[in-house]
């Protein structure tokens, strides 16, 4: 199996990866973006983007499609929905194998593999996906018109989506594991003043129960240990994100949460390997900060190529 060589390979096709692809390709650096999911990453999951400077309001999908077209027009190759089956980052020439049958090498690699929604991790969770368990209010809200539902989580997404769901549903119980919310003040205020919303604090779901769809959930109060069975028509889960770094363990330095550690130039502990976007250890995760990371990583990669070839 002969390898195809690129100057730079970007792992991930979200806002950070696409930005890196745009900058690299425009600089005439032969670039390939390898994406294990859908191009656009978590940006695609965003219904409305209203705070991206220069764009009054657009959909996350629309924005991702423009970024993708920009990258392709500058000559960037993109492979999406593939599986990375081998990764060698430590050698001078980096090697990436996909789907067990295509091999690529590169002088430099930018890791921008982003994150994925965190799940509760209960065995019954996967069984009821789409059958009473949802991760997208805008997609599935209308299936729950007039119903009584639960939203799990205490961050901005959970509280904002709970308020959004009250357009359709009869009632929302917000179940949160702590005694206070992590969301911003405005989101908490909006949820608290909504008459359809009530709160079950310091509790978590231990099991989803139903025949063909979710009918009840078992809850446990984390403070008292008391258990409770709550009838429900559906559960929406918003409990944060996990970095897509399973395949990077032992290859690059990661934080205790699995995020890649970089310096301000997006350089990892491995020469020629950079990281950008939500996969990186940092405080703020926005499309704008991912775009910034992708820009810096691309410029650093260009500098690395020029100095090492």
């Amino acid at each position, binding site marked *: 199996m002969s390898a195809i060589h690129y100057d730079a390979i970007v792992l991930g096709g979200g806002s950070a990866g696409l930005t890196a692809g745009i900058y690299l390709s425009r600089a005439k650096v032969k670039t390939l973006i390898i994406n294990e999911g859908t191009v656009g990453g978590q940006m695609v*999951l965003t219904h409305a983007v209203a705070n991206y400077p220069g764009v009054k309001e657009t959909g996350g999908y629309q924005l991702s499609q423009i970024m993708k077209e920009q990258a392709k027009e500058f000559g960037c190759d993109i492979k*999406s929905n593939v599986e990375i089956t081998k990764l060698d980052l430590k050698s001078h020439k980096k090697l990436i194998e996909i789907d067990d049958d295509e091999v690529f090498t590169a002088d430099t690699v930018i890791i921008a593999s982003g994150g994925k929604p965190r799940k509760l991790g209960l065995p019954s969770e996967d069984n009821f996906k789409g059958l009473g368990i949802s991760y997208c209010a805008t*997609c599935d809200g209308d299936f729950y018109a007039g119903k009584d539902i639960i939203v799990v989580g205490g961050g901005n997404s959970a509280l904002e989506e709970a308020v959004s769901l009250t357009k359709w549903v009869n009632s929302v119980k917000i179940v949160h594991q702590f005694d206070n919310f992590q969301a911003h003040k405005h989101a908490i205020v909006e949820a608290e003043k909504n008459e359809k919303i009530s709160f079950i604090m310091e509790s978590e779901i231990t099991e989803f129960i139903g025949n063909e769809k979710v009918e009840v959930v078992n809850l446990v109060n984390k403070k008292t240990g008391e258990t409770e069975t709550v009838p429900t028509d559906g559960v929406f889960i918003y409990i944060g994100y996990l970095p897509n770094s399973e395949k990077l363990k032992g290859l690059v330095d990661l934080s205790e949460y699995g995020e890649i550690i970089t310096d301000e130039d997006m350089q990892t502990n491995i020469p020629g390997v950079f990281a950008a976007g939500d996969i990186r250890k940092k405080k703020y995760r926005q499309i704008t900060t991912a775009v910034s990371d992708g820009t810096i990583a691309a410029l650093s990669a260009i500098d690395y190529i020029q100095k090492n070839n």
Partner: protein
Amino acid sequence: MLLGTNLKHIESEEQFQEVINNNENVMICCGRMGPMCLPVYDVMEGLEEKYENVAFYDFAFDSPHAQVLRNHELSRNFMGLPFTFYFKNGEAVKATSSIQSKKQVKENLDTFLVKE
């Protein structure tokens, strides 16, 4: 009413019947242009070349004609988009609700739409 994908589209109940009757293996994703549906269309577009024995189609969920899938027996408890159906010799042999990964789609194609 058409979806903005690169898949072939089903636009009417009549066309739906023709598609499932004239193809041994058919996969249809019935959804909208939303966050849970787009990844499934993307997976299907990527698999079209590899699964030449399967006809891949989308069907706009909000089209009145899509009631054949919205009200299908296999989707009676579905509460998450997209509704994805697998047909063999005109019969629905599998249906899933909500987002599916490439691995999950391939498993269903390999299990339910095996080349005879």
